[in-house]
């Protein structure tokens, strides 16, 4: 994978390939970390890319390209011309397992866990000496951000992250969940009541369109990460866990202020957003190592609460491969643990950061290890209620992602058995998880940082499943209310509601001009005439869609007369019926024996409505909608909220939060 912000080989010796007799070989530096425009553009200052808090730890690294047959004799890092004098054991030279072309002779040199207190822009220089005495030097820069005193500091930080939730998604949820009359919202969403709102730029280190890994990581490290990576800068080694680290806000605040960390998500807990609060890796897919690191490095992060789905990573797997390809000692328990996705850190990272070395241990019983570390374990909603007095809490409510709000609520209403088909009938709602998490974290005297994620807003947007992502936003907003209520009782708390990025380019195009029976009938004659021209009402024809809200706080149905219609600007090909995607039949082996309320749905559920909807050609290839680069709103409540006005970069949020809690 191309690595951003590395410099192509300098002009003089790139000619060496064509004119070997004329140009003498010489070593060069092709990457200098932290990344800087000064290095990448060979002298242009540009914006300072890497910024850190006073005392925030980060790794220094360089890739030194050596002449064929040469070795690296020596290297040093200098900051502002002064030798950094690394502590013993915190440096390394790696010459194998590199991701560079095979004919390239190179050494990746690292110094771990560097920090600086003096504010200002600083130069970073690497000096390297090749075995034949030739020397090379390269210079970049980084900034230590000065934080002024900010009045009385907040003690607690609550970050509510609606994955993929842009402005359209918030508006659509308000229309559905609150209703409008004569142009006015009948009542606001919880997130609407936050007094301060700004806009956030979300791009990653390597593209205008981010994914969820840097989407979260940028907020809580103050630095841009590349797509698919969490809490690290890119490097040139294949090892996914040895990348140059950036200290997380959780780690910084635990180390300097003793704060605890809580992570709550409706996704598999190894997923990008929860992982990018605490885990350092260049591969968001390495589930075994990610969940292991949650526990192993709780001494660095202060991890106190971890809740969501993803039990499959916590179950012991077999260790040895048998002749028939199955694993020795594997109890067929569903474990997805795998040595391939596990971690074992090099010695310099262990020494520099005080991190756990880790081990390739697919046979690890991680639930048992969490319990041994003092965590109460909740496998379902009943277990969550029973763990109310816990001081540390692990909740694993599903095998992979938790079921979406649409399906969880319909289970509670007795209208669906999807959660039963998944085998996890008693899953909590996000607001219930948020309440339980905050109750545990509030016991921590030094305060906490909590991240609460509505994960499947994004996941259902990728599927362009309008009704399901809308209910995800409503579930998320109920968690926002829980956080706001907490902050109202604990005024030394800052709460922010934001998103890692927008997803799918969702737009509220209008509403149906026909009752729901007409939309259902139109599936019999699919096409633009029956399903677009005759149905889509724009401008004043959109009127004000009305959704009845049940006592549980969710719409009685999303298929209402004159329902709101959503279009997608970042979509793949899809067939649109405007109807909620049907619930599968109760028993897939008896598709023709349906009982109410399922009998109202097609007997053979048609994913993506290929024979009942009209084709909308997508802007992107594949089967899913994609993220966009659109700025997203951020709303703030509580102590220090006034800092979050205007248009800001997602990395700016890190420094604002640090200032609010009194980091200096």
């Amino acid at each position, binding site marked *: 994978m191309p690595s951003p912000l590395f410099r192509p080989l300098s002009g003089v010796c790139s000619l060496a390939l064509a004119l070997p007799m004329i140009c003498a070989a010489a070593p060069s530096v092709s990457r200098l970390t932290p990344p800087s425009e000064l290095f990448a553009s060979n002298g242009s200052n540009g914006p300072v890319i890497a910024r850190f808090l006073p005392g925030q730890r980060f790794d220094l690294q360089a890739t030194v390209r050596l002449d064929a047959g040469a070795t690296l004799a020596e290297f040093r890092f200098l900051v502002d011309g002064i030798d950094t004098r690394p502590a013993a054991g915190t440096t390394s030279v790696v010459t194998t397992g590199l991701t560079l072309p095979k004919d390239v002779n190179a050494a990746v040199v690292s110094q771990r866990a560097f920090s600086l207190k003096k504010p200002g822009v600083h130069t970073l220089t690497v000096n390297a000496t090749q075995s034949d005495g030739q020397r090379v030097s390269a210079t970049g820069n980084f900034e230590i951000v000065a934080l002024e005193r900010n009045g009385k500091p907040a003690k607690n930080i609550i970050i509510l992250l609606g994955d993929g939730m842009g402005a359209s998604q918030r508006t659509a949820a308000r229309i559905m969940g609150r209703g409008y009359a004569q142009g006015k919202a009948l009542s606001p969403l919880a997130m609407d009541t936050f007094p301060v709102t700004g806009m956030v730029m979300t791009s990653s280190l390597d593209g205008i369109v981010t994914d969820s890994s840097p989407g979260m990581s940028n907020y809580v490290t103050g630095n841009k990460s590349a797509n698919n990576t969490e809490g690290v800068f890119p490097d040139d080694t294949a090892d996914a866990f040895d990348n140059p680290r950036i200290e997380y806000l959780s780690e910084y605040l635990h180390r300097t202020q003793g704060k605890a960390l809580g992570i709550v998500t409706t996704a598999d807990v190894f997923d990008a957003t929860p992982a990018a609060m605490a885990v350092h890796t260049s591969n968001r897919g390495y589930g075994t190592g990610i969940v292991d690191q949650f526990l192993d490095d709780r001494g660095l992060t202060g991890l106190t609460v971890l809740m969501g789905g993803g039990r499959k990573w916590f179950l012991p*797997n077999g260790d040895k491969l048998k002749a028939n*390809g199955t694993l020795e000692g594997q109890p067929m*328990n569903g*474990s997805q643990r795998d040595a391939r996705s596990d971690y074992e850190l090099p010695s310099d990272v262990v020494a520099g950061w005080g991190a756990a070395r880790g081990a390739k241990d697919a046979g690890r019983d991680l639930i048992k290890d969490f319990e041994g570390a003092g965590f109460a374990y909740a496998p379902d909603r009943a277990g969550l209620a029973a763990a109310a007095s816990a001081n540390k809490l692990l909740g694993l409510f599903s095998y992979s*992602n938790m079921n979406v709000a649409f399906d969880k609520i319909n289970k509670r209403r007795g209208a669906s058995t999807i959660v039963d088909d998944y085998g996890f*009938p008693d899953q909590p709602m996000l607001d219930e998880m948020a309440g339980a998490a905050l109750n545990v974290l509030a016991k921590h005297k030094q305060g906490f940082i909590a991240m609460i994620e509505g*994960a499947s807003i994004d996941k259902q947007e990728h599927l362009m499943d309008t009704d399901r992502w809308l209910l995800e936003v409503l579930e998320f907003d109920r968690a926002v209310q829980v956080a706001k209520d907490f902050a109202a009782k604990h005024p030394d708390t800052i709460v922010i509601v934001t998103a890692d990025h927008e997803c799918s380019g969702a737009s509220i195009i209008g509403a149906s001009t026909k009752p729901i029976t007409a939309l259902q009938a139109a599936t019999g004659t699919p096409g633009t005439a029956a399903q677009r021209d005759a149905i889509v009402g724009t401008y004043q024809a959109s009127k004000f869609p009305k959704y009845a809200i049940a006592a549980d706080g969710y719409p009685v149905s999303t298929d209402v007369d004159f329902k709101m219609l959503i279009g997608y600007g970042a979509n793949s090909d899809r067939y649109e019926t405007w109807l909620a995607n049907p619930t599968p039949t109760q*028993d897939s082996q008896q598709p023709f024996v349906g009982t109410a309320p399922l009998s109202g749905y097609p007997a053979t559920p048609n994913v993506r409505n290929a024979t009942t909807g009209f084709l909308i050609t997508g802007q992107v290839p594949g089967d899913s909608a994609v993220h966009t680069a659109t700025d997203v709103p951020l709303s703030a409540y509580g102590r220090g909220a006034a800092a979050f006005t205007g248009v800001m970069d997602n990395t700016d949020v890190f420094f604002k939060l640090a200032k609010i809690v009194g980091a200096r």
Partner: protein
Amino acid sequence: MRNAVASVFLILLACGPARAESPRVLQPPVALQVRAELPPLADTTDLKFRDFFALPIGPRGLVPSQRLLGLAGQRVRVVGYMARQEQSSAGMLIVAPLPVVLGDEDESFSDDLPATALYVHLADADRDRSVPWMPGLLSFSGVLRLGAASEADGRMSFVRLELDPELSHAIAAAR
């Protein structure tokens, strides 16, 4: 002439607008399609997803049922839905008790695949073929294999079906 033109027009109207199908959607062979209650299949036991493991799933991991364990190495028939993936793997497809879409690109393994997923392996002669997504309720028969194994898509499977060769060839030959 006018009548001929009108006839052509009516024929075209009856056909409806051209419906562009994704090239990654495969109409399943007739032998796999489930359109009515299935008649018994000789020497084959019908196995339902809900019979794989104890349901609901307990506080830890999956617990295979005695019925499942007793059918290891036997011929079984399972009815379900093929999981739709961004990229299919050669020689293998995933079948679930309900329709699922796996958004691999932005999800990795943070997915909506139920724990009771069945990995169906094509016959050796077809193992190099990637299988585009086949919509609808489908029937698969073959030999049941149990135990943890690492699959080409990076997941661990626990329940696998070695698909009957004639069904495997029908999929491989389908367009």
